[in-house]
């Protein structure tokens, strides 16, 4: 069956070609058939049916009424548990709804379930989850591939057509890289566009909510629904949210695209360099001016990120102490022992590794050498982009340095795993909006992604360039 788009489905619902119940039953059926992919941490058919019942009684017009959406299990939801894929939050039932999910509920969407992720969003393969790996729906039989991460469950849910869109979060590439691996569209908007209220915190100066969808038009509709100012997040920004979808314009004539030379990295597979060149050629044909730009501090983005993100994580994750919610160890002869055993048994290996490194770089005597140094290099990276955007309207790069790799391939060497984020991390550090769209395939017929970056709060330009490339590729 060919996947229907959100845009088309909204039309079909509107013209009564299909009912909300019929639509969602179709998705429920597929979710149950694809159970082996381990896409969801929480799925309850009963819960979905209840939402359908409620919407059928609701006569008001709503923008996303009846649309099945999957939610990354990092967003607090009142109707479903929230685990962050960690044992330490097993059985946690939030008493409040995240900003982003509340917006989607207000629009009338139906939550089909909570999707799997790397534990506390720390990973690039959805293989650090306490609830097991998610399998990339594009895998061949007996050759399971990773869906990317950390939002691997959400990317896989869209790729396997188990929903019409999904929420994700992106700290260093956690939306864009899995979108690339699963052959779907994924957008991380500007830092501050969507409130972080109710998202389990990983690295607060980098965390940002975003969207997975089948195509760029759908992403533009969904992003508009989750964006907006919120006083409960002090970094949420008051900006006018345009109607991205209505304003979509694939005419790029006269625009300038920046091509950063530092993104040509030794060891990048030929196929990835090839699709990058192909994308540039397509843009050139559309009348886009090609401008070679330099982002000189690009190579320092990853080490900068792997100081700042663990430092913030070590602070954010201090709240999991076995007192207020979640898991508590049985071995509790004293308060300190309770903390130490709860955290030893409740966190997985990668999370502990990042807490330890974060604690080290923040500890007395090392703060200046590591954390402060990283914040200064971060400034230089952000300045690189500011300079570049004086000369171009958007930037085009590959999304990831590889196609989807076999499950568990990169588990043992942390640095090798961190290199997955080489093309996505710089924009995260600079807080810029970025989208990944499927563009070309490798020799094994696996999808590859092109990343488009824009200026702060210029999501419209990012969508316009993306829809233009997408339409020329189809």
């Amino acid at each position: 069956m060919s996947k229907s788009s959100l845009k088309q489905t909204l039309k079909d619902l509107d013209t009564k070609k299909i009912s909300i119940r019929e639509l969602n039953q179709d998705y429920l059926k597929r979710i149950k058939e694809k159970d082996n992919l381990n896409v969801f941490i929480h799925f309850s058919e009963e819960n979905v049916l209840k939402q359908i019942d409620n919407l059928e009684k609701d006569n008001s017009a709503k923008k996303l009424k009846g649309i099945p959406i999957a939610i990354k299990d990092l967003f607090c939801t009142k109707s479903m548990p929230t685990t962050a894929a960690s044992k330490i939050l097993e059985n946690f039932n939030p008493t409040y709804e995240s900003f982003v999910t509340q917006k989607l509920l207000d629009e009338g969407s139906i939550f089909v379930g909570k999707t799997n992720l790397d534990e506390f969003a720390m990973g690039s393969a959805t293989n650090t989850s306490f609830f097991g790996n998610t399998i990339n729906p594009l895998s061949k039989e007996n050759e399971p591939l990773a869906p990317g991460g950390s939002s691997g469950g959400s990317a896989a849910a869209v790729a396997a057509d188990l929903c019409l869109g999904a929420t994700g979060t992106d700290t260093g590439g956690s939306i864009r890289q899995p979108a690339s691996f699963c052959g779907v569209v994924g957008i991380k908007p500007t830092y501050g566009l969507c409130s972080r209220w109710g998202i389990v915190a990983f690295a607060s100066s980098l965390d940002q909510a975003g969207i997975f969808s089948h195509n760029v038009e759908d992403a533009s509709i969904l992003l508009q629904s989750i964006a907006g100012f919120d006083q409960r997040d002090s970094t949420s920004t008051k900006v006018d949210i345009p109607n991205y979808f209505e304003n979509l314009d694939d005419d790029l004539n006269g625009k300038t695209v920046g091509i950063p030379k530092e993104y040509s990295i030794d060891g990048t597979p030929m196929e990835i360099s090839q699709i990058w060149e192909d994308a540039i050629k397509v843009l050139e044909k559309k009348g886009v001016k090609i401008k070679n730009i330099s982002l000189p501090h690009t190579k320092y983005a990853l080490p900068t990120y792997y100081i700042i993100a663990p430092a913030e994580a070590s602070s954010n994750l201090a709240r999991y102490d076995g007192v207020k919610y979640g898991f508590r160890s049985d071995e509790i002869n004293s308060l300190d022992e309770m903390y130490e055993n709860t955290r030893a048994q409740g966190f997985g290996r990668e999370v502990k590794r990042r807490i330890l490194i974060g604690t080290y770089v923040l500890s007395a005597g090392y703060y200046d050498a590591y954390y402060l140094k990283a914040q200064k290099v971060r400034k230089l990276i952000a300045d690189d982009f500011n300079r570049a955007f004086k000369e171009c309207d958007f930037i085009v790069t590959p999304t990831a340095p590889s196609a989807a790799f076999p499950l568990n391939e990169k588990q043992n060497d942390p640095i090798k795993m961190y290199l997955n984020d080489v093309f996505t991390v710089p924009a995260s550090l600079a807080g810029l909006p970025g989208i990944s769209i499927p563009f070309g395939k490798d020799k094994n017929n696996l999808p590859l992604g092109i990343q488009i970056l824009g200026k702060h709060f210029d999501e419209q330009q990012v969508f316009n360039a993306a829809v233009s490339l997408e339409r020329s590729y189809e």
Partner: protein
Amino acid sequence: MKIDKNTINKIARLSRIKLDDKESEDYIKDLNSILDWVEQLNEVNTENVEPLSNISSSILPKREDVSNDTNSSEEILENAPDKLEGFFAVPKVVE
């Protein structure tokens, strides 16, 4: 080597994470390799560069100083691993 047995024990203690000997050894190896790798930042001249801690350009808006009751303690305590008479319960701290 930046991280030795003493350092890892100190960090683990600060992090309130109990490590067994095998784990300590693994993390000593991991952390040293990560710290060697981030060492390359020292190549960058950051003299007179302001550290960037918040990328957001927004100015914190003021809000009205009004109280609101968003949660009941009862609801919150439902998630607690142990509770007693409307409070979180923990192992005895004072003898």
